[in-house]
Each structure stands twice: as structure tokens, then as C-alpha cells.
């Protein structure tokens, strides 16, 4: 019997205690004739506990990464949002998205890689490095992914402060 969302939350709380900065379960009803609830789990950590959190998550099932990392910018920090999902392929309606947010302070933009736990995240980490300028430590492959080699290294296209050269920005 796979641990469901409520048991998972209890386990995370007992393992991490105060380090789990925020945790939330979201419900959404789906289906017309056979309605069922779709749940997702949203956790927030500081970047120094992030690698431990993903290792703890991998004890329940091999995590699958759904989407490259999204980012929210605040004055003193940048939040990196990693949408993992576990229990994929184990049976009907069992998959659970576990969305882990890692808080990275703005004066020290780096975070540890998780390719040792989820090897498929390599391309997404390469994209985050070049688009947001956050240094991923111990990454096995340091090359750029999408931007050409002659783009100046100061240009970080996905940061809010970057506005296309000479255009004055959007609305």
C-alpha cells in the first residue's frame, strides 16, 4: 500500500520539523460521472535542506520531473519551483505531484544539483543555469543548452529585469 498524501505530509513534518517552511495539500474535483479528487502537495524548503528533501522523497518512489524550474523573484531571494511527481505508472489515479520550492538568497545564487537522485533533470538544470544565472554546483555537464555560445554571460534572459535589447520592454 503506497503512502498517500496525508501520510506523506506527516512523514515530511516529522523528519524536517521546523525546516519545512510551508506545506499545503490542494484538492481539485475532476470527472463528470465518476467524480474523484485530484490532490497535489506543495512544500517549501530553504536551499540547504533541498537536497535532503529530494533524497527523502526518493525513498517513497522514483521521482519524475514534470517541468523545468519556474522562478519567482522577490527582493531578497529567488524561489525555484521544482514540480516532481511520484508513483507514476503504479496504477489507476495514483500519481501525486509533489512541488518543492527551494528558496535561494539573492546575494549568493547557487544550489546543489540533484542529478545523482534524478538523472533526467540534467537538461533542465542546464537550462536554469543559463536562463536565470543560478549556479548549480557539481553539475556533471556545464555547457549551455539553448542559448548560443556567443551570448554574453551577463545576459540572463528569464530574469524579470532582463528586457530585450533596445526594445523598452512589454506592458
Amino acid at each position, binding site marked *: 500500500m503506497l503512502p498517500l498524501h496525508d501520510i506523506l505530509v506527516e512523514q515530511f513534518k516529522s523528519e524536517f520539523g521546523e525546516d519545512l517552511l510551508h506545506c499545503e495539500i490542494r484538492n481539485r474535483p475532476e470527472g463528470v460521472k465518476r467524480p474523484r479528487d485530484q490532490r497535489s502537495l506543495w512544500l517549501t524548503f530553504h536551499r540547504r535542506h533541498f537536497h535532503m528533501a529530494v533524497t527523502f522523497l526518493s525513498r517513497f518512489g522514483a521521482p519524475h520531473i514534470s517541468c523545468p524550474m519556474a522562478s519567482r523573484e522577490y527582493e531578497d531571494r529567488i524561489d525555484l519551483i521544482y514540480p516532481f511527481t511520484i508513483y507514476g505508472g503504479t496504477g*489507476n*489515479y495514483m*500519481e501525486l505531484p509533489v512541488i518543492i520550492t527551494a528558496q535561494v538568497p539573492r546575494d549568493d545564487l547557487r544550489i546543489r544539483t540533484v542529478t545523482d537522485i534524478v538523472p533526467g533533470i540534467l537538461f533542465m538544470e542546464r537550462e536554469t543555469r543559463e536562463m536565470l544565472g543560478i549556479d548549480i554546483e557539481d553539475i556533471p555537464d556545464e555547457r549551455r*543548452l539553448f542559448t548560443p555560445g556567443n551570448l554574453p554571460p551577463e545576459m540572463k534572459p528569464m530574469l524579470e529585469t532582463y528586457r530585450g535589447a533596445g526594445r523598452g520592454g512589454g506592458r
Partner: protein
Amino acid sequence: MSKSTSTFPLSIGPTHPAFKEPVKFSFEVDGEKIVRTDMDFGYTHRGIEHVARERNFIQVIYLLERICGICSVSHPMAYCLAVENAAGIEVPPRAKYVRTIIGELERLHSHLLWTGVAAHEIGFDTLFLHTWDIREKVMDCLELLTGNRVNYAMLTIGGVRRDIAPEHYGILEETLDYYRELYNRTREILLEDLTVQMRCRDIGVLTYEDAVALCAVGPTARASGLPKDVRIDYPCNAYPDIEWLRPASPRDIGKEPRGDVFDRMIVRVLEMKQSVEIVGFCLDNMPDGEIVVESKAIKLINQLKKVKGDGLGRYEAPRGEVAHFDILDEREGPAQIKVKAPTYSNAAAWAVMFNGAEIADIPIIAASIDPCIACADRMTVIKNGCGGLSFTAEELHRLSVEKQKRIKATCGNS
């Protein structure tokens, strides 16, 4: 003496056969066998996520339709699911069923297109033209329902834009009967032909452990024995109502999944049958009611302007899982959209599949995970710096066809 054991580098790309996006491959080849693969992306990077920041909620839907021509309903679908999750909008039941019908018709046409492309790559041109001919019926159906053969413009946040009128039901049922009749004959040609099996068996293998570790999705993962399918694992639209839906797998016809190109072909053929049955189910059980929550576009934008939050939307495109993560921040448009196409997830698995294959197998392995439409052109063989030979697309294709003839000759003689 060391020359006989060293490998030499073979570069293919950026614009080259059997791909949608131009991708640069660098192989290390030992004789005819490939030893190592490396890939280089970024040649069609269009900055869509950056452009989407400067558009409002309705304009982004049409921008996302044009990310990919074949799975052109999947990206707006995942976007609408993500925004509806973030804003807490309920979709009316009839709209859910219409969305499912359009999604499954698109899956049918995409798998027929793939079958033609794969057959062309191995030199079986009769099958290529046969499947593209069959595909015309579903394209006519889509044109009748949506107004265009590609880029359907059917979706909006909170529902769909056009309804399926009662006079369309008859034409849809006719199309489904046409495909049910043709299914057995097509399946025979695809799966029981000996030369197709000899070209595709045990080529481009992706093991179960690699599929889990590298996060493979879609038919690529299902052919390796990993039954991941977003329609069953995390369903939306009308999929929770369909009790008999299971992920397609080679085990359904009694073969153990080995993760090679032939298993991917089996999975796609079985999914074509599934799509026809799902559309039949939706037509029989269509609920009544309205098709959209808010039909006036400007009012919708003003409602969404008050929302702050984020949401994850996932959908099963013909190639795998499409996921969008949207952040809404009280603006007229999304503050950030992150797009993950299924080929992005399968790209890491691609590198593993080429090891141990021959050069003439490169087109079929590359086409087996179903990247987008074939873009033309060159392949240059570099021999340690002394000039180079150049093959055009026709010549590479000719190599592939000649291998087919050799196999037919040995198979005919034995």
C-alpha cells in the same frame, strides 16, 4: 597500431534528416557501430516563454498552438488546465467531453502520420502513402468541427469555443466506422510483416531502469515496460469516466516489452484503436449544458487579473506528457509560463538508444521517439581533418533503402 582501435567522430546536423527541430548530433563511430552520442540543442529556440510575458491570457493560447504543428491541441490544453488550477475555475461537463474528443482525434492523426514517417525511413513507401491516405478522413472531420486542418483554435480558459452540432454526429460516427473496418488490415501490414520486424527488432533499446532514471514519457516509456500514462495516472477532462482505459503495452498482444523500436510501433498501433473507442464513448455519453464558463473574452481577462497563485497542468499529448507551470500575479497576462514538451523529456533517453546501432539505423531510431516533422538535409563525414564527404538527405535515405533490399534478399533466400 592505435589507429585500428580508435573511434572517429561523425557529425550530423544541425539541419538533417528525420527531425523536426534541427539538432546537432556528434557520434563516435567504430567501423559501422556507434559507440558514444552527444547532442546539442538550441537551433530553433524562439524565446516563446519570454514573448508570452508580454501578451494577455487570450493571446497566449494562440501563441502556444504554434509551438508544434502536430500536437497543436496539447499545449493550449495543458495551459488552460494550469490556469484553471491556479484560478479555481470549474469547467462545464459538456466542454470536458468536447475537449476529449478533439484530443483523441488529434492523437489518431498524429499516430497515423508517425507510422508513415517511420515506414518512409525504413524504405517501405507503399505503407507511407497508404497511412497518409487513411489520415485524410480524420483531417476532414477535424476541419468540419474546428474550421481548419491544423491549429484548431478550439480551446479557451474555462471551456471550448465551438460546440459539436447534432448534424456533425452522423459524420463522426461514419468516420469511426471507417477506421474500425480498416484497423485489422492496417495492423496486419504493420505488425506482421517480416521485413518490418527485421529492421526494427532489437534496435534502439531503452531498458526499464534507464526509462525510470531518465524520466522517459509517452510511448517511449510504455514500450520499455513502464506503464506511465497521464490519462490514467492523473486524469482530467472525460478520462476519469472511462473505466476500461489502460496504458497500451506490448503485453496486450502477448509480447514481453523489450524497449526497442518495434515495441514503440506496437504501442502506437494499439493506441490508435483506443482513440477510436474513446471518441465513440464520448459521443454516446455526451452531457448537455453550456460549453464555456465565461464567453466574453474581455470579461474573462478582467476576472483573471485579480488572481494570484500558481498551477501545474499536465496532459497526454500523442508523444508523451506535456506539462505547463503557470504563475499568475494580478496582471493581464501570465507572469511566467514554463513549457515542457514531451520530446524534451525523451531527449536524454535518445542518447542512450543509439549506442551499438549501425549508421544506416540512425534515421529509424531517431524517428522512433517521434520528434516533429522531418526537416531536410546534409550529413558530413569528417575523417580526421582530411576534407569530408557530404551526403544529402536523398543519399542517406538511399543507404537506408539499400539495407532494406539486402535484408529482403537474405530473407527471401532463406
